[in-house]
């Protein structure tokens, strides 16, 4: 094995990722069982105490609700929009310029996305929040209200992340052989037949992969919320990652934050396994 060149080609990567990912993950597992409050002296083994405290806390409960609501709402909107845009731009005549414009949000730093939408939606000075919305009769300071703030974050996130899903769907749509459509058209199929009998079934794999990435991405969403609302008002936009950051770097409880990190790993694994089982056998 040591004589094999492939070993030497792979080993630097394995070592690098071992140092920055595998080792930290193992360390996290250990941290989650430790009493480790930075402002208090002493770090000691604490068993499952961190998890018990976490599951019993109202902050964790509300973060679970917020994370679920944000995840479901944003993913649903994204799938529909990305699919529609991909269908509209998959044709042979659509230009590269249009596609480039559509994917621009993808390369804009999420921090900037968050700031821009906060600026746009602001109830006193924002172009949308203080000008367009009042013009159509909606007088609400979105970012200052619990539901409005959550919805604002979903809008900003949809703006920022739909292009990635759009790219996945576009690639998948373009790989469906044209003959399938021609064949079914000869049999007198209508547009919605084509969609439900060919397009949708052929896209199943791409949709599930896109949703999987989306779930992981949404669990990681931090800066957008940090810049727009810092988790507020109250706890109305405080997701797992916001709660984890607050626990670790404002409450200085590394043990509890690590326990939350373990919960996030478990959730991600469950989602990933479900998607793999359901859709990706043999891929």
């Amino acid at each position: 094995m040591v004589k094999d060149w492939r070993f030497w080609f792979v080993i630097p990567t394995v070592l690098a990722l071992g140092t920055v990912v595998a080792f930290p993950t193992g360390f996290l597992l250990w941290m989650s069982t430790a009493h480790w409050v930075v402002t208090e002296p002493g770090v000691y083994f604490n068993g499952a105490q961190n998890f018990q405290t976490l599951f019993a806390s109202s902050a964790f409960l509300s973060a679970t609700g917020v994370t679920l609501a944000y995840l479901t709402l944003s993913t649903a909107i994204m799938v529909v929009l990305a699919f529609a845009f991909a269908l509209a731009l998959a044709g042979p005549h659509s230009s590269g310029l249009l596609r480039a414009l559509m994917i621009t949000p993808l390369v804009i730093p999420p921090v900037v996305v968050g700031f821009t939408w906060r600026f746009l939606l602001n109830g006193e000075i924002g172009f949308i929040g203080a000008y367009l919305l009042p013009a159509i009769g909606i007088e609400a300071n979105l970012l200052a209200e619990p539901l409005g703030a959550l919805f604002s974050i979903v809008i900003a996130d949809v703006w920022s992340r739909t292009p990635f899903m759009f790219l996945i769907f576009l690639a998948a749509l373009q790989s469906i052989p044209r003959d399938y459509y021609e064949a079914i058209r000869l049999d007198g199929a209508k547009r919605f037949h084509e969609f439900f009998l060919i397009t949708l079934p052929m896209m199943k794999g791409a949709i599930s992969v896109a949703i999987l990435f989306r779930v992981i991405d949404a669990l990681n969403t931090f800066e957008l919320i940090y810049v727009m609302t810092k988790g507020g008002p109250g706890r109305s936009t405080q997701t797992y990652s916001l709660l984890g950051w607050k626990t670790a770097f404002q409450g200085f409880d590394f043990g509890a934050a690590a326990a939350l990190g373990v919960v996030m790993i478990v959730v991600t694994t469950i989602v990933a396994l479900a998607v793999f089982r359901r859709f990706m056998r043999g891929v």
Partner: protein
Amino acid sequence: MARKLGRTLSDDLGRWTLITLALIFVLLPIVWLAIASVKTRNAALAIPPEFIFTPDFSAYARIMSGGFLGAFQNSLIIALSNVVLTLVLGVPAAFALTRMHGKVQENLSFWLLSIRMAPLFAVILPLYVLFKSIGLLDTPIAVSLAHLTLTLPLAIWMLVTYFRSIPVDLDHAARLDGANAMQILWLVIIPIARPMLASVAIIVFIFSWNEFLLAFILTSRNAQTVPVAVASLAGTMSFDWPLIAAVSVASMLPALIFVGFAQRHIVSGLGSGAVK
């Protein structure tokens, strides 16, 4: 014939309405941000908004005087060194992965995929403790290394898809001519893969340039990156909206320039990598 024509017409109408709405949705925030960056402080806050105004570039001058050049320098160092690290580690690994079979290859691929899916928050706390204990907190090296968690699996994944499409016969031919693995990679594979390598480099650069959470946790003053600077500006109570807008616009430039040049590669790279 008439029915068919009618169908395409209504199809096109629906399609172009959708595309127009999508473009407005996508472009409005960017355009509005760019406009705000060339307004005076009062004009940027005026409601109803002033659509006709004399551009004022003083916000961009305030980037220089406000000490944000350091953040741009840090971001550049971090992103560039991350690109180099990612390619130096990732290219040989991806090539070796495509020339392997069986259990080892399967397990390695699965391991890489699972790293790509690991929640970032899970590695941040341990990395913070690790870098703190070896005195690397608040240095560009720490951030650049930490970014490998995101960029290396992504790059390998995209490269594997591409290297698979290069026929193994080329390797065999070169091997018959007496080339070793390093020479095959350097003299045969890399020249063929140059356009793909360029797009991987660009995507990795953008990921590293835009990344916030790791840079935010691992730096405090000296190694602050542009996204962290934007966030701290947006967190101050006295809002200088044009200044934040100007820094934001400047922070988007590298990525936008790259996308302009490499749009095709990004579309095919990210898209196909995800499906296959």
